[in-house]
């Protein structure tokens, strides 16, 4: 029987390292932990990015960032430098990159669809250099669709057995 991945938390971080959305799917656990994880991951992501630039890699998937207590933290950076960080429950089994990548792609799609919402720009300042405010707005509780999409993915990861 193939092992199941369990998604503990998802974090979207803007290119300027502002958190866009942090969702946790674990009951009874401190959210603080996942906020910490998301925040500290940025350091590791920075290291990976530097390495990626050095090797001229354009890979979005940043692989396992680090493991900590009972979670494994994976990173992904969209071509527009939005960082997606997920915390998977740690299992003593090989986690295949392909599976993680599937989750990341789904999350990326959810993010893209949410940011495409034209109404996000409704009250945003029209100046270009402040553009990331719109990204941040996507994660605010005012816009439920993004949260819902991410939650759906979180649920789906838990239910669907990852193809072995």
């Amino acid at each position, binding site marked *: 029987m193939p092992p199941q991945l369990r998604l503990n938390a998802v974090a979207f971080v803007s290119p300027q390292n502002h958190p866009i959305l942090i969702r946790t799917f674990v009951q009874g656990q401190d959210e603080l932990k996942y906020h910490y994880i998301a925040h500290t991951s940025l350091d590791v992501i920075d290291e990976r990015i530097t390495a990626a630039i050095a090797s001229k890699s354009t890979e979005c998937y940043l692989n396992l960032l680090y493991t900590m207590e009972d979670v494994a933290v994976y990173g992904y950076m969209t071509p527009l430098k939005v960082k997606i960080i997920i915390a998977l429950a740690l299992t*003593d*089994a090989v986690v295949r990159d392909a599976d993680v990548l599937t989750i990341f792609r789904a999350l990326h799609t959810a993010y893209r669809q949410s940011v495409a919402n034209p109404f996000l720009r409704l009250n945003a300042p029209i100046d270009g250099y402040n553009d990331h405010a719109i990204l941040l707005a996507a994660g605010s509780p005012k816009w439920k669709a993004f949260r819902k999409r991410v939650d759906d993915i979180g649920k789906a990861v838990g239910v669907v057995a990852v193809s072995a």
Partner: protein
Amino acid sequence: MASNAQRVVVTYAAPLVFLSTDHWKQIYASLASQLPLRNLHWKATTRPTIRTIQELDVKLVSLETLREDQTASQIPQSILEKPLLNIYVFICEDSEAYKATTRKQIKDWHATVSQRKNQEWLLVHVVRPDQSVAQGRLFQMKTSVLDKVKADFNTDKKDRCVQLVWSADKDNPAVWADLITKIKDGILSAFDTALTQREEEVRRSEGQRQMPGWNFCTFFILKESLASSLEGMNLYEDALQQYYELEATFFQVLREKNLSWFGPLITPSSSDDYAPLLAVTKKPYRDLILANTISVFDFRVYLLARQCALLSKLGELEEVCQKTVAFLTTFARTLRDVEDTLPPFFIESWIYSSALSVVDQCDEWARPLEMPKNELASFNAAKGELVELARQQLDVFGIAAHHLPNQPPFSLSLPTSYSISKESQVEEASKTISKAELATALKDKDTFYELYVSVTNRAIELYVSAGRRKFALKLHGSLAALDVHRGRLSNALQTFTSLPAHYSPHGWTSLEAFMLNRALDIHAAAEKPKDREWIHILLHFLRAYVDDMGKDLLLSNEDSEAYVAKLVQALKDAAHELDSDTPYPDHTALSMSIVDHDAKLAETRDGSLLKVIIYNRLPCELPVDEVEVQLAGRENSRISFTEKVSQLVPGKNEFTLFCPSSSAGTYTLFSTEISLARLHFQWKHAKTTKQIRAGSVPTLVRIPRDTKALDVRLKQPSRIELGTPSRVMVVLWTGRNDVATARVQLSAPSGIQFRYQEAEVTGEDAPPIRKDDESITFLDLKQGQTVVAAVPHSDASSYHFMRVNITVDYVTTSEPDVTRNLRLSRVVATALPVAINVEDFFRGTRLFTRFTLSTTTHQHVRVRSTHLLSPNEADGVKVTSCLAQKPSVVTITPAQPGRFLFQMDANRGQAVRDPLKLQISYRMLREEVESLIELAVGEAVSETPALERLRQDMVDILVKALETDASWVELYGVTGELVVPGVKPDEDELGAGLRRAMEILNTRRSPASYGEWREIVIPVDVPQMHILAAARLEILENPFSHAKSQKRTRPLYAGQPISALLTVTTSFHWTPPEDTQVESYAMRYDIEDLTQDWLVSGRKRGDFVAKDGETFSVPITLIALHHGELALPKVGVTALPIPGEHRMRSTVIPGCETHQVHGAEKVLVLPRGGRSTFVVNMGVANTSM
């Protein structure tokens, strides 16, 4: 198993006799010195690329010493266990000797060696160099020995015989090259064959995995032999690959839950929890594996240790750390399943010791390596992770032993399924845990804290050197939390107040809020005074709290709203105790927006009202005192709307703010402020130019004009007298209020100074004023009163217009507490609308002055009258205006200037000639028409009082109509009738009013009958002239008649001489007073050459002395060159320089003006007279008849 010692084995053999010689020993030593081998290029048959082995250590053993019994073992050993190459060394100087003995020896050796599987052999023929040097026969012989050997043994293509030309005294490395190459080839070839074979075995075994009877452990040992073989060949990467494959296979087996080949998951021995993780020798792992009794725990540890050992040889220390972290965390989870069977805290203790031991081991490995900077950083980061992992175990220990509270951040490290352990377990653990420092720490609080702090600091240090700031921050946070628990509140407070600054810049409000929340709690716990610092922490906290994510993590309180409400209440108290104003910019909990961008007038009093909405995002009411909005107008003027407010409820609060002193205009929102006692929440809204360019436009607020509020206007005085200080008229109208004081200040950006001290109030009923250097203050003004004050100012003639900023501070009698401030910017014209040119014509005692008035703008100017006034009639200047009184008003247009002529008659020799004054009474056409319209509309309104409110509209409509079409101007100019073009009144009240007004306008009227006239007084100097010459050329009847005959009787003929008399009458009448003493001037006359008309004979040019009133005359003769009506030549008269007088290094020429008395005269010249004879033929009488 000593796999590290595994080396490639090469055997050597030689004839026994030879082996015992010194010569052999020398050869052996020299050969050994050539080792280890370098730069082997292995072209593997099963691998796609060439592997290069930098260095390969080779063990030389004698063939005899090699034991053959190992082949008996069933356990697959490394293929390097057996020799890869066998060398036979022999000396044979001639073929006879070879045939006799050597061949036999070689044959024996070859027989044993060639049978062996996967081994190569090599024959080395040692030759003395002196032999090779000697040519000829020996050479022949020598070759023949090697050839023979080759022929006998080397049957296949591969050359396995080599000659070594060597002697002890000539130890040249070059001689070894051939042999070494052969050795390399041999080793690689043998290795390749052996490895291929072994790989084949492994593959076969793997393929049988699903078959019954397959044993993972056997497979493991087999495959591991591959790895150790590769490792022995220094092919670490390939060796590592084998272990990775093994690991993968293991997981596959694990997934199939087929662990029958293993012992229990773990059989903890006493030292397991602290033995160095990466030591492969700490247990007889291979034996355990072979016995199928190895526990999964041990197996995994062994696998990891082997991998790490290989990684360390590759220098991949960072990966070692990462692997161990991953292993420790993942395997710990597996162990959790069987936690009950383990000693208490075995897992934690194991992780702790292992993590730290790995760090030490890595440091050990890293010592000889020199890492580049970035690699070192990531290595440090990886080590940091390990140390942090160890630290997390301390969290667990601490909570279990009640050294730490079970709450974040310590509780974050607890496993998901953690249950609070019993005292007994801790007690027991302190005995079972073998790591001494942990055991004592469990028992002793202080030791534990010390350990905790030192481990944490170690992790922080590593993270910092790795550049992982955020990890370090997190650990700092936990140290602070420890400080809190230990009661070191001030330390903790310091950390917690400094940490949020690291989280806030990137919007990590959740973490920021957590830190601030901590800081507040500590502040409260430490019972520190709620001072300014506390307020700042609190405000930061509230700011993070209202952020979406901030709320998520409010940990210490169940009912966060009540908690915040309590804080806010405390904030109020604290704010009241502040000893100085404390601004707090841009707090996000409150936001203010302007509802209506058009301010309303207060109507009943001066001032305007502005509606704003304040959005309070806090969950509780916020007590405040005052709300203020500042607007910025032109020239940096600011007005502020304020309102006293008691509190802000959560959500929207709508307020109407009042500003008592609001000048009309458009303003930008500058700043907003909400005050709570001395705490001021401030927001700046002013935009920089860059922001505006980027499209972030400022918020605009329009304040309408209050027509009934106090107003100040500036006018040009209606009478301008050039030469006296310029003045500006300040017209102040009180509007609806009785004004107690009104202080007016004027300032001009162009730097014009106003002299308030010289200001004068004009008009009847002038109120008392106070004057100082900076302002003029009007006192006790009645409602609706207009005061006019003339304020002199410095010269502004270089500007056409003067921009004046007016500031009025006034206090009404009804609201004596409010000082209203009115800022206005007015423009007042300083330039005159007309330009004046003067031309003077002297005629004897009279002077004719012509003034040309032209407009300086495009506007028409109406001039009612001009007067040239003499200041004093008695001093002898008599001015006569020669302008007729009708038409009374002259219109000056840009195309048509107006000319005004005056005659002056002055006596000679006034002591002082005061300047005359030209007084022009004028007005602009626009002003005139506007006042006419006002008049007409006023008349219409007085007939129908209901129109009063439409008055301004009517005026505006009419003025606009006149502005758009200029066709009315001409008719108006002539008749005074104003026909307004293009207005089509509707059938309503306004229309009726307009019709009536237009009717009134359409009547004929004299422009002098209405409106005000402006006046300019211009001083005009009476011109002066030293000499006034009147030249006359007079035709005389004959050369001798001196008398001036009034009537000339003789006609003039062309070509005939005509006598003429030139007279120049000079007058010093207009001589400047200072030069009246001069009696005569030297002068010169010059008759103009009119070569087409006249020939002049006589003194055409000459000098003479002019005296006042005297006439100089000279006769000349003129000859007209043709007949016709001819003008007489003109006479130029110039003054000569006054001899001996110099001014400014040039000669002084007195002023002189000449007029031609005969200028208008012409003479009729007849054609030359003479007789003409006409012959008339009378014909011959009767000849033909």
